[in-house]
């Protein structure tokens, strides 16, 4: 192909890529901007006129509310961060070690282990049973483990992805070579497999982090107001506010008597905004690891 055609071809793709991505980005961003603007809108105006990109009356009341509740909300923030970081790290360790064992197809019973993992994705005992197990047998109710351990610590979905990565993207020859050199299994895992797995680790790390960040079901079941409020996460706080508002809305008899102001819709928008920001900012950190073109250590297939 002539150089000119090559450049044209390359440029054409650049243009296509930019146009499509730009449209996509705008579609994704606009609603978020609407969300942010809504959080700065005066609540009465929002009720009467609906939300718009140019509200009639701007107001900081939603953020003032957040500032006044900073004791709860700030603490929830801290908890969310702690749980997300700890949970993601622990999850990466458990998932990768398990996936590595399963990826070794000479290991007797590796298929059983794999099936064991996938089976959990299909059948589960339900919340009553889980609650019983975690509250009575393991007593994690109202502790920080209640947010980290249930459900997310090892997801079969991640196990499959990591195992596939190990199988498909790491050449067995490297492992063989290392074994011949006398390296032990742990050593191979830590010194060879892990560095080569940065993209997949970053991938499932990001997905796990998002799962932890967005989760409110663990808190809903295992934390209660009797000693668990210090562990509330941001999404849980938002969720409880919404549920309480729905409860009031559906039971108007109470509404007349409720003298305390429940957070208005715009306040809920504000809480949602501050709930999203950190994870968006954390994304670039993971993106560093999506490094192009990792070579396979010079082994030709």
């Amino acid at each position, binding site marked *: 192909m002539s150089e000119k055609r090559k450049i044209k071809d390359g440029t054409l793709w650049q243009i296509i890529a930019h146009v499509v991505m730009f449209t996509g980005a705008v579609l994704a961003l606009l609603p978020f901007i609407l969300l942010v603007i809504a959080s700065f809108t005066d609540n009465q105006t929002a009720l009467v006129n609906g939300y718009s990109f140019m509200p009639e009356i701007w107001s900081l009341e939603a953020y003032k509310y957040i500032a006044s509740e900073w004791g709860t909300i700030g603490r929830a923030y801290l908890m969310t961060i702690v749980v997300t970081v700890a949970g993601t790290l622990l999850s990466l360790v458990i998932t990768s*070690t398990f996936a590595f064992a399963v990826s070794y197809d000479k290991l007797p019973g590796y298929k059983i282990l794999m099936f064991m993992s996938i089976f959990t994705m299909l059948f589960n005992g339900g919340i*009553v049973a889980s609650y*019983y197990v975690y509250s009575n047998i393991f*007593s*994690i109710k109202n502790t920080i483990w209640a947010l980290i351990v249930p459900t997310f610590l090892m997801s079969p979905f991640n196990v499959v992805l990591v195992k596939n990565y190990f199988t498909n993207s790491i050449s067995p020859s490297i492992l063989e070579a290392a074994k011949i050199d006398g390296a032990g299994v742990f050593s191979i*895992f830590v010194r060879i497999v892990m560095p080569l797995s940065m993209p997949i680790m970053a991938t499932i790390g990001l997905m796990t982090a998002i799962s932890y960040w967005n989760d409110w079901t663990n808190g809903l079941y295992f934390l209660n*107001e009797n000693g668990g409020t210090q562990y509330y996460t941001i999404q849980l706080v938002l969720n409880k506010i919404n549920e309480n508002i729905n409860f009031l*809305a559906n039971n108007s008899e109470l509404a007349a008597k409720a003298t305390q102001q429940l957070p208005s819709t715009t306040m809920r928008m504000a809480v949602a905004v501050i709930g999203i920001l950190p994870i968006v900012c954390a994304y670039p950190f993971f993106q560093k690891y999506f490094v192009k073109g990792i070579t396979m250590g010079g082994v030709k297939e």
Partner: protein
Amino acid sequence: MKRKQMIKKVSAVLLSAVFLLSGCGSSDGTQQPEQETEAAGAADDNNAENTAASETGDDIYEIVVQYPTLGTTPADLKMVEDAVNERVESEIGVHVTFYPVNAFESNNVTSMMVSSGEKLDLAISIFEGGVANYVNKGMIIELDDLVEQYGQDILDAEGIAMQGGYFDGALYGIPTEEKMARVKAFECRKDLVDKYNIEYDENKIYTADELTEIFKIVQEGEGGAFRCVAINGSEDPLYSFFDHTDQLGATYASGVLMDYGNGEDKIVNYFETEEFESFCNTARTWFEAGYLSPDCNTITDSAYVQMQTGNYFGMFSSAEPDMILGHSRVMQDAIGTDVVPFYTSAPTSMTQLYQVTQWMIPITCDNPEKTMEFLNLTYKDKDLVNLIYHGIEGEHWNFREGSDRLIEYPEGVDASNTPYQTILNVWGDKSKDYQLPPMEDTFFDMMKAFNESVEEEHISGALGYCFNSEPVKTQYAAVSDVITQYQAVLGLGVADPATELETYRSALKAAGIDEVIAENQRQYDEWKAAQ
């Protein structure tokens, strides 16, 4: 590097150890020791063993009482709890521990606690339509004997409201009502009523057609985006304000008795009636004429919140004196006018009215006698109930000049910053409650007059009967589902009844509504014969 692999090995082992060790960790104070995997079901009415952890001595029984909140636990709850204990420990030998719970999840919390054998002595059912659920799952105990022995003050205070706590022949729930009747109305803005010189008769029961006339006038006058009726699709359906039916402790899915429960003893499918058909047509007229917002079935804010924007003439609501006063106060603050009620029903007395808030004793309670004693005390002792409701005298409130039942906030404290406030008042004999501003002495007289205003012909013949849906639970679930689908759209006139009504009726039949109603009738006849 050997160190790195050692670290990896050690961490893997440690992690597994953590899981094993946490099983041996200390449980929180409210758990009972539990060996088997079965849920504890030991409590039985005559079990008088004291196995709960007690802090202050062997004679004192600790009871765990649910304390419903709307998300935030009052800051001074512990202080109030201590004050309560000062009284009750010496008086009846009970130590109270309040267990805050979000109102919307009280059902879940109770279920989870009971299913895993955790100690819970007094559970609250709030806005769930009664105790049927709990009884069918075997979570709570019968209270007949306990109330007879220890609950005399409860019976005195609640009177007719006790009828709401019966299910399947026994008493399971203790209500806390200060209102012995309910009345429904269209509450609307006084300033607009005056502006258009609309005739207002407070002794009249208005029909939907009469309201249509009024809406016409107001809509023409205000025009534009103004709407006559503020409504929310998930609240009580419009027809329920006009139909004067008794839902027999359940819902429309199981059939109703017409005419305040005083007509025929026949349970009917409300949606087959001519009355419903003509209401659908009226609702359709309202919707097409613009009295209702085109978004009425999807709007998320409650009618109450919508009213405060000033863009609506009125809303349908319960209209007992305290409701009118409360709504007026809020509307005054919001847009500067009071509300007047156009009554759409007479004050009535039916089972489901008394199912709003009910106290229950779960099977995980070890000493139901003491628990009932405490509950009874909240109906007997004026100081105790106000302590729980309002807080500590001098600290959270003071008597107003010259009154022993009207109170006010202390200097510098108001509704928005008080460290103790009970939003959901579910405590004891509410007629003994002290009142904050703007309620005055007239409030007590108004409530008394209202309670006594229920006429004989408006007291339902089915009072005390509650339908048990368990035998037909499949059909009941299917029918409820159909009703949810059509209730907002037909009830608000969003869909055209000419086409949709027939579809609705046949969908109900297909889901099995006739079987549910037959079961209901059977249970009802049985109950009536046993009276």
